[in-house]
């Protein structure tokens, strides 16, 4: 079952190059002034780091993932000041709270994927969102249930972060070179990340930044800093300088 998907990814990888894609959006009328003493609740970032096999398979790597997690956490801490507001980690949840949190993490992932798939990038359009796209309206919500999340009562906004990195293995890179000789494009590596800000009172999605080709090697300290900067550079109210495009 798993490998049917992988077979599909192999054939896709050999034929179509993924275009570098980045976009972010802010809900209309939403402004978060710097130093406005708002509290931002950071939910446990989802980080997966691994290698990409010659055939395009994701090979999970525990050591890289642990490194990336630690690095990203350190970088977040460092940028906290520049975000203009206080960022606190969400408390550990138990029992019903934990189940509620799990449901909302999954919901956030689903909603963000919908934004990315149907609003951010050209191509797929949900019929109900066509008008929104033309008038630059950004209107998505997780529902009022977010107010009940653990830690939500003492905070104003919730921040979700997702990262998935697959570094091209040596085999994949060699394949890429040979494929280029044959005039076929084979991509090596996959670096997807997105971050979103949710209003913890109303559940509205206030800001979302998605990038299907992120920079920065999260296994390294400097790389993680660059990654976090890219994720948060358009963060409302932040004064993080924009990374220079490479």
């Amino acid at each position: 079952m798993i490998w049917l998907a992988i077979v599909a990814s192999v054939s896709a990888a050999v034929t179509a190059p993924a275009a570098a894609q980045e976009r972010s959006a802010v809900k209309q009328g939403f402004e978060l002034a710097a130093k406005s003493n708002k509290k931002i609740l950071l939910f446990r970032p989802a980080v997966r780091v691994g290698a990409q096999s010659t055939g395009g398979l994701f090979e999970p790597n525990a050591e890289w993932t642990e490194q990336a997690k630690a690095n990203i956490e350190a970088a977040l801490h460092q940028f906290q000041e520049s975000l203009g507001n206080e960022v606190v980690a969400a408390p550990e949840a138990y029992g019903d709270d934990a189940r509620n949190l799990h449901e909302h993490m999954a919901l956030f992932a689903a909603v963000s994927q919908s934004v990315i798939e149907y609003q951010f990038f050209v191509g797929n359009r949900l019929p109900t969102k066509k008008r929104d796209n033309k008038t630059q309206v950004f209107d998505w919500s997780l529902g009022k249930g977010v107010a009940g999340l653990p830690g939500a009562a003492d905070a104003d906004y919730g921040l979700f972060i997702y990262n998935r990195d697959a570094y091209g293995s040596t085999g994949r890179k060699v394949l890429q070179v040979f494929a280029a000789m044959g005039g076929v494009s084979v991509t090596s590596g996959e670096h997807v990340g997105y971050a979103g800000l949710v209003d913890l009172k109303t559940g509205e999605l206030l800001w979302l930044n998605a990038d299907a080709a992120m920079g920065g090697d999260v296994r390294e300290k400097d790389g993680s800093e660059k990654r976090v900067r890219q994720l948060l550079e358009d963060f409302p109210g932040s004064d993080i300088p924009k990374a220079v495009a490479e």
Partner: protein
Amino acid sequence: MKSSAALLLLMLGVTCGRGDAQTTPLPPPYAGAYQPQGVDEIGLWREDDESERQLAVSNLVVRDEKLTAYVKQVLCDTVGEDRCKSVRVYIVREPTFNATMSPNGTMRVFSGLFLRVHSEAELAAVLGHEFGHFEQRHSLADFKSLRSGTDVLAWTAVLVNLAASYNTRRVYRDVELSVYGHLYRYNRDQEREADRLGIAYLNKSRLRPQAASLVWQNIMAEVEVSARHRGLKKPNFNVIAFTATHPPHGERANYLSVLALPEGADRDSGADRYRAMLAPWIPLFLEDQVRLNDFGGSEYLIEALAQAGWTAGLWFARGELYRNRGNQRDLVQAADFYARAIEIESGMADAHRGLGLSLMKTGRPSDGQKALQAYLDLKPGASDANMIRMMLPKEVTGP
């Protein structure tokens, strides 16, 4: 060609072994709590740990300490106390026949399994099989074979593109087929190995090993009834499809019965204990099953459960099954089944509801309204109370 010959030999080997209990390999000695080794395995475990963390807080998990502890105990009785310490059991509410075990020791038991096994020994056969996958670290081997397979395909695709011609494309198709074929066959061989290990645990346990073959015989019977009700021809339980991930049911039933220790036939199968423990859960699991819209299969399962005696819950589930299909002839039958449920348990509110709704549609509205009134009396706060009230005559509804 070579592969099918090997497969033939394997099947022959199994049939030749009939009656020779020596062919059962004993489980390898237990080596203590295992820790993952190497980049691939440690990586897989980390992914798995993350997925278990999500599973633990998922709403799909049936959080009943008693039932979970019971399933765990059956596993421990099968594979031994020391081995089972490395396992966490989660019961997942999912009405299909399955259980899985992942590399880090997470066992997911689907609720549909409980409708299809009828004794501790049958449950143990399935759990032992899954534990076999875990002990042999099949997920890791599977991942590696998948990786090599896709590596070969990626290279072939690129090389074929370097010298694209009609012939090289044909070569690519051939390679593709043999790689996929190999991957599926590899999967089936892993299942056979897990089967052999599972039956070896069962042979050593206090439970009756002949139950393992019974599980597959029952599944074949269910599949057959389900196919018949859908107007399909009788499935062939011995043919191996190209994309089959498991050996055919017939083959499994066969070799499992051969490998079961003959002396074990007198052992207890724990059917009574199993039935008593599962009794409170069967109605809920049946409710999910009935919604699968598999009339023949559900009917078979209900009747199989009823062999130990019809209960109100079973009559009710059968009523629901017929009422959901909803032909006029079904509704008449459903009314009969609900009535039998009420005979056994007069306070079963939902049975009165089903009876009322079925009678309303089959030309007996006055009896139907009486049943619906009984439903409302038993369950005044029901979520559909207002809708049901609309079907009652005005004077009965009150102010």
